[in-house]
């Protein structure tokens, strides 16, 4: 199936969807290259599923066009598009057995001898034994694999996955993530995957588009998004970020020197997505695992050139591989710090005075004119 042409490209140009006065998707441009594993990530109601449904043809866009390769499919009904979907909750046909579910697409296209293909496909998803069972007799993970097989057997140009792992428990989800990734590599079809699980998106996709309130906030590789978030939403939604309000003091070479509380912090200019002029405000961000924690008594041992903040441990939770601290600091009441449990310092208990320090290279700067907590609440909601 691997081809070098661009027939599996998905190109969305200015595509948008409004329901009455509610804008589900603001006009957006997006190109998913042939053969890539692309994830649309966002909280529920951010427009990611609507975007997917517009690619599938199940939703008519209010404006803009959808191209598959060079073909304009904007006004084609779903049954005429070379695209197949794996639905959330799978939508397996309850009155048909597994074999007929998988054969459905082939039969509708008038293919007579489906037996060999269906059997091969069921082997691929390791369900050869279950062919004559009804969907409700299978476990969630098995149903999910049937849904994938039912879509893949048609050799679509693009496979759309609408939160396909949402109904599975954590362990099974991890397993299916790897499984899907394996299948994608094997068949080489373009996958567009919608999810609200940032870990899932980062594990599986080559490229992630983070969506918020009907807009694409940022697009990039998982590592790029994680290390260089462009907005507070991305910083908070993908993992956890400590964001500190600071003022630009001066510039020195390629670095910006910032004032936060009483101290100074250094931020490489290249890692600041905000316009930074002296006196302007920026948000300084740093990931919790990049921060080291030293007891205040040993503050002298901290190497020069590192960003420092002082604080007091408010809470510590031991979670095996690491310990997660919450540190109160004059510049921010809750700083998260994750420390690997390599050599544990017995003095780092709640109430202890500490110095937080990290390399300036791990600092990122964001525009201060945005909601510092964007993306935080949604994460907590999902966890609840």
């Amino acid at each position: 199936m691997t081809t070098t042409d661009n027939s599996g490209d998905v190109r969305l140009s200015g595509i948008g969807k409004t329901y009455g006065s509610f804008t589900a998707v603001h006009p957006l441009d997006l190109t998913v290259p042939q053969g890539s594993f692309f994830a649309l990530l966002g909280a529920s109601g951010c427009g990611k599923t609507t975007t997917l449904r517009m690619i599938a043809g199940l939703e008519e866009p209010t404006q803009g066009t959808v191209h598959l390769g060079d073909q304009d499919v904007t006004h084609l009904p779903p049954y005429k598009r070379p695209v197949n979907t794996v639905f959330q909750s799978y939508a397996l046909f309850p009155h048909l057995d597994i074999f007929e579910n998988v054969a459905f697409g082939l039969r509708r296209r008038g293919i007579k001898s489906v037996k060999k293909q269906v059997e091969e496909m069921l082997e691929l998803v390791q369900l050869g034994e279950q062919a004559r069972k009804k969907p409700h007799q299978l476990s969630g993970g098995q149903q999910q694999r049937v849904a994938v097989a039912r879509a893949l057997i048609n050799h679509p140009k693009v496979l759309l996955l609408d939160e396909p792992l949402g109904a599975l428990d954590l362990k099974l989800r991890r397993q299916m993530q790897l499984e899907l990734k394996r299948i994608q590599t094997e068949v080489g079809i373009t996958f567009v995957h919608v999810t609200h699980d940032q870990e899932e998106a980062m594990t599986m996709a080559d490229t992630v588009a983070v969506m918020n309130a009907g807009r694409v906030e940022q697009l990039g590789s998982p590592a790029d998004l994680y290390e260089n978030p462009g907005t507070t939403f991305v910083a908070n939604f993908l993992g956890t970020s400590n964001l500190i309000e600071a003022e630009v003091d001066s510039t020195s070479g390629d670095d910006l020197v910032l004032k936060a509380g009483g101290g100074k912090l250094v931020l490489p200019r290249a890692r600041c997505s905000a316009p930074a002029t002296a006196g302007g405000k920026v948000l300084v961000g740093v990931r919790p695992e990049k921060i080291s924690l030293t007891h205040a008594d040993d503050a002298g041992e901290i190497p020069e050139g590192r960003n420092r903040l002082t604080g007091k441990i408010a809470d510590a939770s031991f979670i095996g591989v690491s310990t997660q601290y919450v540190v109160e600091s004059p510049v921010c009441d809750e700083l998260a710090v994750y420390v690997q449990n390599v050599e544990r310092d017995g003095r780092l208990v709640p109430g202890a005075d500490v110095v937080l320090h990290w390399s300036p290279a791990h600092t990122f700067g964001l525009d201060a004119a945005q909601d510092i907590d964007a993306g935080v609440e949604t994460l907590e909601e999902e966890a609840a």
Partner: protein
Amino acid sequence: MPFVTWLKRHLVVIAGLLTLSYLLLPNVIVTVFSFNRPKGRFNYEWQQFSLDAWRQPCGVADMCGSLSISLQIAVWATVGATLLGTMIAFALVRYRFRARGAVNSLIFLPMAMPEVVMAASLLTLFLNMGAQLGFWTILIAHIMFCLSFVVTAVKARVMSMDPRLEEAARDLYAGPAQTFLRVTLPIAAPGIAAGALLSFALSFDDFIITNFNAGSTVTFPMFVWGSAQRGTPVQINVIGTAMFLVAVLFVLASMLIGNRRNRQKA
């Protein structure tokens, strides 16, 4: 106290058997009396075992004619009510149109209204229209009161249907007609079948509405009613028993098919 323990353990079974016998006793009586050879015209006292009535089920004048009319009306009423009712149910669940709410509640009226009232109003309507009372007026009346039952049964089924199933079908290259035939209809089928069975039973044994609108046509329930004034032929019990047996066979067959399917799956 072994008896009390035994009773406690089997209380549910005993209660079940008692209920069942309460329900089946009338049928048993009907069956037993179909083998009676009554003295005089009334078949109310057991006299002597006989197979006469079973040998000549149509031995009574006009009875089999009325049975055939009843069956024809029941079949056509079922077909008509099921077709219309299924379409109405889909319309009510799937589409938003003006007066949808009103239709939704009005459709239940025939179920709630006293039959005598409905029968009388229908008769008024037919007479004012100058319609000839008979087979067709009965059929129209039956379709009307069966409709609400079909709509109720099918609506419940369509409402509980996941709309994503049809989307999945469209996504898998099924056009609108194919989607309906291959996915929508098979999934709604149990509701449609339930509505059809109800319609058949309701139409077959309806007396009040039929009696008002029949003109000179005589259906089976009307025949039974009429003959009960003058004497009850044993053949009525034969027909009753036969219907009961057919129903039991249907139930057994569906159970057997269900069991075999389950065993195949396991």
